[in-house]
């Protein structure tokens, strides 16, 4: 009565088959990445760049999945790469001078007290559904953001804080009214967050808008969008209202742009070298030789705004202790971060604003790497080294957790290295990787010790958005009489120099209280093939494809 060998062998074979199939999957992953890595071909072109010619499809590999395609709701760089092409803004910020120039608004007047902004819209602009751009479209968009849409469009809502309403004088003239001075609003109208959409879009459900239910006036229109996979854009026929900073007027050159999501940077670089992609985002240092070796180039531009920082939650001990926070400022070796994990395109943070932001002041002396001083501060605050090297106070180890979403592909290695640096001074930093959606949830419920992020904006008012207790208040701190008043005051200051002085004081005040641990400045690092030309950055370092063109064969 013993089992036949067939009976007994079946499960064994099954296991072996399963082992083999899992091994095959793992092997395939490796092989894919490996082949992509070695299949580099000489893709450089011999002749000099020809004249821009219309036509062609640009295949772009994004480093992370977009949140959606609604310009007003999205905030991550990869999302904006897609969304920025679909809609235009009232104004355009010149990437070189930083000045605000006309776009959909031909001109504007601002009242002396900075509360009333009157825009005169350009004639002849149409949305992709054929309807004309009117003052009603702008009003509907602003009303929605100040109303229900604000919950899912935090950035846009913060630009419209204090919004009282929009008065319409005629079809092409409107006045946006605020209840208090608002020095940042004119720059805000140039951002993708306040891009102008057709008024029908304002009535659409926010989640459907993210999936593509939007109508804009941009140089491209959305053909399809698949969450976590990519998007396809096609040229907008009849587009004729590019801003002055664009190299040419009229329609875009490219027929189509195909965005796909490729999270592994090595696969993106290999795909560029082997002609699967024409351009790739988030190029990491180890990929640069491969891209340049195959005839491509790496375009970079530093993002203005708040650099990547760790923002402490002041309601969580031990981060309620300002000394612990100050020690963190000195315990991070920012130069080592950039040299080890990031490429030459990146810079160590030298303050709570990135160096390309108007109003930035260099405070690198306050952020110099000094582990001894960090250790001394912690010791003086009662944190003594424990048995395993981690400091202890009243029996509690000095443990912190950083919550981060991998929206920038270098984030994981950067934070691992930060953890290693902090461990050297006796701080145990744990990494908690979450999805972008989970990060939003964690932020809303205050469930984090340290919040890792950056925000791109070419105006110092971003400090108020991120640090004022009346705004996002990621530090969850109580209102104070130093930081908050400075941030409010700069918003009402019409004189540029006086505003810059207030902003400088605010940057110092934030460091005094160690409300942020700056790490490094984000740069957009884009790899493009040799036959792709004129992919450009806007003032906020986001990509524009209106001028881009591909050399056509024959």
């Amino acid at each position, binding site marked *: *009565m*013993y*089992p036949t*060998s067939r*009976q*007994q062998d079946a*499960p*064994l074979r*099954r*296991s*072996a088959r*399963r*082992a083999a199939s*899992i*091994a095959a*999957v*793992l092997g395939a*992953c*490796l092989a894919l*990445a*490996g082949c992509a*890595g*070695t299949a580099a071909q000489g893709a450089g072109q011999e002749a000099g760049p020809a004249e821009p010619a219309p036509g062609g499809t640009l295949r772009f590999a994004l480093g992370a999945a977009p949140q959606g395609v609604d310009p007003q709701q999205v905030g991550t760089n990869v999302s904006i790469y897609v969304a920025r092409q679909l809609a235009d803004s009232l104004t355009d910020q010149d990437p070189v001078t930083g000045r605000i120039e006309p776009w959909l608004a031909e001109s504007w007047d601002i009242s002396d007290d900075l509360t009333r902004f009157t825009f005169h819209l350009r004639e002849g602009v149409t949305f992709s559904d054929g309807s004309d751009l009117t003052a009603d479209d702008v009003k509907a968009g602003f009303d929605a953001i100040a109303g229900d849409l604000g919950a899912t469009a935090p950035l846009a809502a913060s630009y419209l804080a204090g919004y009282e309403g929009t008065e319409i004088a005629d079809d092409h003239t409107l006045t946006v009214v605020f209840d208090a001075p608002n020095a940042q609003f004119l720059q805000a109208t140039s951002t993708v967050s306040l891009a102008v959409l057709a008024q029908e879009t304002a009535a659409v459900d926010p989640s459907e808008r993210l999936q593509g239910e939007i109508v804009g006036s941009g140089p491209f229109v959305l053909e399809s969008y698949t969450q976590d996979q990519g998007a396809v854009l096609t040229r907008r026929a009849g587009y004729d209202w590019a801003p002055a900073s664009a190299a040419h007027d009229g329609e875009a050159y490219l027929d189509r742009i195909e965005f796909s999501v490729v999270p*592994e*940077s*090595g*696969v993106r*670089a*290999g795909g560029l070298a082997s002609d699967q992609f024409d351009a790739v985002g988030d190029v*990491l240092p*180890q*990929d640069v*030789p*491969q891209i340049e070796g195959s005839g491509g180039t790496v375009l970079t531009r530093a993002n203005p705004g708040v650099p990547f920082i760790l923002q402490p939650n002041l309601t969580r001990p031990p981060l309620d202790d300002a000394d612990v926070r100050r020690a963190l400022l000195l315990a991070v070796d920012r130069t*080592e971060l950039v*040299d*080890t*994990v990031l490429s030459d395109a990146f810079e160590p943070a030298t303050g709570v604003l990135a160096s390309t932001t108007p109003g930035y002041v260099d405070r690198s002396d306050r952020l110099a790497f000094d582990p001894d001083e960090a250790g001394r501060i912690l010791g003086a605050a009662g944190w003594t080294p424990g048995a395993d090297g981690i400091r202890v106070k009243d029996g509690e180890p000095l443990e912190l957790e950083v919550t981060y979403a991998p929206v920038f*592909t270098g984030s*994981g*290695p950067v934070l*691992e*290295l930060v*953890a*290693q640096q902090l*461990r*050297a001074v006796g701080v145990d930093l*744990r*990494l*908690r*990787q979450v999805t972008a959606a989970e990060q939003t949830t964690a932020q809303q419920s205050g469930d984090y010790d340290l919040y890792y992020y950056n925000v791109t904006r070419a105006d110092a008012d971003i400090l108020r958005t991120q640090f004022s207790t009346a705004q996002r208040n990621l530090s969850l701190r109580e209102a104070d009489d130093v930081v908050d008043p400075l941030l409010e005051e700069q918003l009402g200051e019409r004189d540029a120099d006086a505003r810059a002085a207030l902003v400088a004081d605010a940057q110092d005040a934030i460091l005094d209280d160690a409300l942020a641990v700056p790490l490094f400045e984000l740069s957009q690092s884009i790899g493009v093939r040799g036959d792709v030309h004129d992919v450009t950055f806007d003032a906020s370092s986001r990509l524009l494809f209106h001028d881009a063109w591909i050399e056509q064969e024959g």
Partner: protein
Amino acid sequence: MTALRPPVRPAGRLAALARPATLVAALAVAVVLLWALAPGLFTGHDPVTGVPAERLQAPGAAHWFGTDHLGRDLYARTVHGTSLSVRAALLAIAVALVAGSAVGLVAGFTGGPVDEALMRGTDVLLAIPGLLLSLAVVTALGFGTVKVAIAVGVASVATFARVMRTQVLRVRHATYVEAARLAGAGRAAVLLRHVLPNAAGPVLALAAVELGAVILAVSALSFLGYGATPPTPEWGSLVAEGRDYLAVAWWYSTLPGLVVAVFVLAVGVLGRALAREGRTDR
């Protein structure tokens, strides 16, 4: 009465294990188990703290497996990652073995509608690809090595239940079981003292064979990012971390991957030898 006594297997017959391939496999498994128990004996490098200036160095005398993107010694990370990976695999096997055996034992011994219900349940589990089932479970449980182990274990329960049931069916009507019943032993006593010991052999051999598949599954989940949080090393996550550097640092994914492959093969060879042992016994 001697004829009615249950046959007892000789404890460990080493003759069939003495083939060269089996010996090499046993050696490999022994080394890896020692890595898991006493990693400090095999490497003096710190697995979590690296020297950033020595990043991405090729394998050499100083660093046998080279270094990773933060200048950490990859051999040290592989050795120190063994403990977590192997412990997770053993836990997964334990979950599958205990739960699967219990289901198979009850189904085989009880028969009737209970048997039907339990076996149709395992059929459903078998219909779902193992890794997919593990992914579903780990997504519900959350991240972490223990949760990965449970998820992988759950996916293997059905296989164990099947084998155990077959064995119980074989033993259930054996003469010594009938005799024990006639002698007045209770159902539980018969089940635990007579049926279980005599049905356990092939199930334990299956556990040895499954170990290889389970280690791969645990590594696969950790490769996908469900395992330990960085910087804690784990076999699967080591392979995953190296993906971005394949073009410039071939050793990063390759060497930890080879260790996994060799260990899984060795466990497989050893498990098959044990299974053969079990079969020639009877």
